[in-house]
C-alpha cells in the first residue's frame, strides 16, 4: 500500500495511510492528487502513495464521515474533487497522531536497544 521509495518493498498498514491523508488535509481542502503530492514532498520523496490505494482510502474516509468532499476549481482552473476534514476527522487525526507518537517511540526504543 505505502512503500518507501527505493527501499525494500513492504506495505505499511492501511491505518497509517488514512492517518497520513488526514494529516495532509490538516492544512485545508485538497484534491486527491494534491494529497499524494503533499505526502510525497513532505516525506522528502520517501513515501509514494499509489493511486489504487489513495482513492479507495479517500472514499472510505468520506463514507465514514471523517472527510467531506466538494467539487471546486483546481489551481489550473479545472474541475476537481476537494476533500476537507470534518470535525470528526480532526478528532480522529488527533487520536491517531498520539497513537503514532507512542508507537514510533516504542519502535525507536526497541531499535536503539543496545
Amino acid at each position, binding site marked *: 500500500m505505502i512503500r518507501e521509495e527505493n527501499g525494500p518493498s513492504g506495505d505499511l498498514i492501511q491505518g497509517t495511510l488514512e492517518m497520513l491523508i488526514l494529516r495532509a488535509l490538516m492544512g485545508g481542502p485538497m*484534491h*486527491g*492528487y494534491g494529497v*499524494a503530492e503533499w505526502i510525497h514532498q513532505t516525506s522528502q520523496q520517501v513515501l509514494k502513495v499509489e493511486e489504487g490505494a489513495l482513492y*479507495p482510502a479517500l472514499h*472510505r474516509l468520506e*463514507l*465514514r*464521515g471523517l472527510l467531506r468532499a466538494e467539487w471546486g476549481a*483546481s489551481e489550473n482552473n479545472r474541475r476537481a474533487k476537494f476533500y476537507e476534514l470534518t470535525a470528526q476527522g480532526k478528532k480522529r487525526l488527533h487520536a491517531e497522531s498520539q497513537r503514532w507518537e507512542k508507537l514510533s517511540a516504542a519502535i525507536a526504543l526497541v531499535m536503539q536497544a543496545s
Partner: protein
Amino acid sequence: MHPHLHEFALRWKSLFRRRRMEREMAEELEFHQAMLREKLLREGVPQTEVNTMTRRTFGDARRWRERLIELWQFRALENFRRDVSFSARLLKKSPGFTAVALVTLTIAIGATTSIFSLINGLLLRPLPVPHADQLAVVHSDRSDYDAFGYSFCAPFFRALEKRHQAFQDVAAFTNSTMQVRSSSGSVEVPGAIVSGQFFRALETPPLLGRYLTPRDDQPGGGPGGFGVVISESFWRTWFNKAPDVVGQKIIIANAPFTVVGVMPKRFIGADPTHRPEIYVPLWAEPVIDAPYNNIAGGYHAWWLAIIARRNRGVSLEQANAALKTDSNPILEEAIPDAQWIKDAQTHHFEFVAESGSNGFSYLRSRFRKPLVAVFTFCTVMLLLACLNLASLLMARAAARERELATRLAFGATRRRLIQQLLVESLLIAVMGTATGIAVSPILSRSLAALLLGHSHNTFLDTSLDLRMFLFAATIAAVAAVLVGLIPALRATSKNLSDQIKDGSHATSARQRRRLLPRALMGLEVALALMLVVGAGLLATSLVRLYRTGLGFDPKGVVNLELRMDKQSLDGNALLRWYQKFGDSLAHEPGVKSVSFDAVTPLSGSTTTITYHTLSNKRERTLYMNTVAPEYFRTMRIPMLEGRDFRWNDTSASGNKIILNRTAAKMLFPGQNAVGQHVAGWPKGSQLEVIAVVGDVRYASIKKGAPAGAYMPITQSEQKKASYTAVVRIDGPPAPLASAARELAARMAPDIPSPVMTTMSGDLDASISSERMMAMLSVFFAGCALFITAIGLYGTLAYATARRTSEIGIRMALGAQRVQVVGLIFRENAWVAAGGLLAGLVAALLASRALASFLYGTSPRDPWVMTISALALGTVATTASLIPAIRAALIEPITAIRHE
C-alpha cells in the same frame, strides 16, 4: 451522526445517483491522470512518452473505478441483484421445471389467498369505524342450549340499554328489506332497523345532516315523525347527490320518513356482510314490518343483535363481570313470565360480551367451520406444492453438483451458495404468489357467490387489504424457505473433494440411498392421499345428499316470491287475487300447473303447531305449511289417500287439514286418518283430515322428513299473507320470469317486482357450503394427483438421467430390459407404497374432523379409502413407469459413449 448511520445514508443516496456517481469517479481519476501528465511534461519527459508513462504509474483507471464503485455499494444488495439475474437465467434455461413450479404454486397460492380473503372478509376484518377494538357483541348463554344466543327480544335489549356501568353505548340492530316507494312502484332496498345509540356506538360522523339518536328512537319518532339516515349510495342513486336531501321525505312501507342525514361511503353499519342503504329507528319496526310487529311480540320475538361500545379503560373481562351481575335484574325486569324466569335461572342464564371489533353477522356461524376446513385443505395443498418443488429442486441440484463444487473450489462460501439457491426458490415463490394473487380476486368472488347463493342482500367483502398482503408475503416467504432450504443445505453440504471426484457421473450407491429426498416424496404421496380421501368423502356425501329422496320433485319447479304485506287488498279480496294470479300464470306458455305455499321447503324457515286428536290429548308438534289447491300435483308429492284442497274450502265450510304419512301414523296409529279430526289451532276448532300425502324434507335437506301438515290458504286468518307462487314448467324458466313480472306489475302495481328462483337453485343454495367444500376439495384432489405425478416422474427422471452410463454398463453386461424397468421402478415403488400407507393412517385419523360435514357417509368409509388409495397408486405407478421404460430403451453403446 453515528458513523455507521452516516455510511448507510451516503450509500443509500448513492443508490439513486448511480450514474452521476460513476461519472464523478471517472472525472476524479481523469483529473489525477491529467495532473500526472502535466507534471511529467514539466519534468521534461517527451510528449510521445507521457501517455505510456502515465499509464504505467497510474495503472488501469477502470479497475480503480470498479473498486470505488464497489466501495459505495451495499454488498448484500448487489449480491442479491446478481443472484436474482443469475437465477432468472437458470429458470429460463429449464422452462419445463419453471412452468410446473409456477402452475402448481399459482393454484395453491391462488386458492389459499382466495379462501383467506373470504375468511378475512367474514371473520377478521375490523369494522371501518373509529376504535373498533372497543366494540363488543353481546350474546346470552344458558346451559340447556348448545349454541350461543345472538338473538334478543326487544324487552331484553331495552333493559340492557339503560345500564351503563361497563358500556358507553349499547345498540340493537336487525337487517331488514324495506319497500321504498319510487315513481315506478315499490322497490326493495336493503336496510337496517337500529336503536337510538347505534350511531353513537359506531362513532362515525355523518356526511350530511345528523345521525339518529335516542330522541329519534321513540314511539312515533320525534316531533316530525320518524327520521331515517341513508347511505351515500342511496343518496347518489335516489337523490342524485342533492345537497338539500336533509328534510326530504321518503315513503317506506307506505309511511312517510324524513331523511335526517347521509352516512359516508365507508360506513357499512355493524354487520360486515350487509350493506344497508336505509337506517330506521327501532321504534319504527311495526311500520316497516307491518302487518307484523316484533316489538309487540315482546319476549316471544327474538330478532335483535346487540353491539356495544365499552367505556374507555374497561376491559372485556370487566364488562363481562358487570353484565353477569346485571343478568338477573334484567331478566326480572324484561320478562313478565315467572315460570320463564325460573326456568332461565335454573339454567344459569346470563349475558356475555365478546369482542365485537369486526361487528356481527349471522353468516359467521354458518360459514366459519366450512371455511376453516377448506382453508386447511388449501394449506395442505400448498404444503404439497412446496414439497413437490423441493423434491424437484433437490433432484435438479444433484445434477448441478459439479457447478456448485466448482464454485466452492473458487472460494465461494457455503453461505453465499445457499443464499443464491434460496434466491432461486424465492424468485419462484414470488412469481407464484404474484400470479396467485392475480387470480385470487376472481376466484374469491365466485366462491363468495357460490356460498351466498342468491340471498341477494348479503355481501362478502373479499377486497385486498393490508392483512391480505401480509398474508401473501408470509406465504411467499414460507414457500421460498420450504421449497429452497432443504435442497440448498443438501446441495452444499457434501465435502468438496467428494463432489469433484464423483462429478455428475455414476453415483455411488451410498448416495442414492439417501433418505431425505425419498422421505419428502413419501410425505408428498401421504398428503396427496389425505386430500384425495377428504375429497372423496365430501363428494360422496354431496352425491348422497342429492340422491336422497326429498319427497317432491324439484326439477322444473320455479318459486315466485310475492310480497303482499304492504298493498291495499286483504282477506277474501286478496285470496281472490291469488286465485286470479295463479290462473293467469297457468295460461303462460310452458306452465303445467300453479299453486302457492307459505313455506318453501328447504328454505330454512319453519312453522310448527301442536295438535292432538279428539281421543288422545297428547300434544304433537307438526311442521306446518299453508298451501293453495294443486300444490301436491305441482310439487309431485304423492297423494296417498283423500282429496286435495279446493278454493272453496273456507272456514265457513268447516276447517280442513292434510297430514303427511308420518303425522298420520303418529296421530292415528293403525287407523285410517282420512275423515278423522284433530284440534289445537285455530283454538277451539276441530279440523277434518281430508287427505294423507307423502313425506317431504322440510327444514333442511340433511334432516329426515318430519311429521307435517298442510292447511289451505283459504282458511288462513292472516290479513295480508305473502305466499310464494310455485310453478311447474316445461322448458327454461327465463321467459316465465319476465312474463310473471309483467303480470304482477299489471295485477298489483304496488308490490315490489317478484323475485323468481328455481327450486333446484334454492336446493343448491341451501347446501352451498357443502357444495363449495366438495367442489374445492375435488379440485384440490385432482391437482394433488397431478402434482404428485409430476413430482414422482420428475425426481425419478432426473435420477435416471444421472445413471445413464450405469444402466448402459448393466445392459452391456447382460441385464434384460425388463430388469432395468424393475430396477428403476423399484426406486419409486417403495416411496409410493410407504407414502400411501402413511397417508392412509393419517387420513383415518384426520377424517374424523370432517364428520360434521358428512351426510350419510362414515368418515372412515372403506370404499372411499380404497378407491382413493387405488387412484393415487395408479397415478404413481404410471408416473414412475415412464422414466423406467425410457431407461430400458437406452442403447448400451450410446450410453457408455455418453461418458
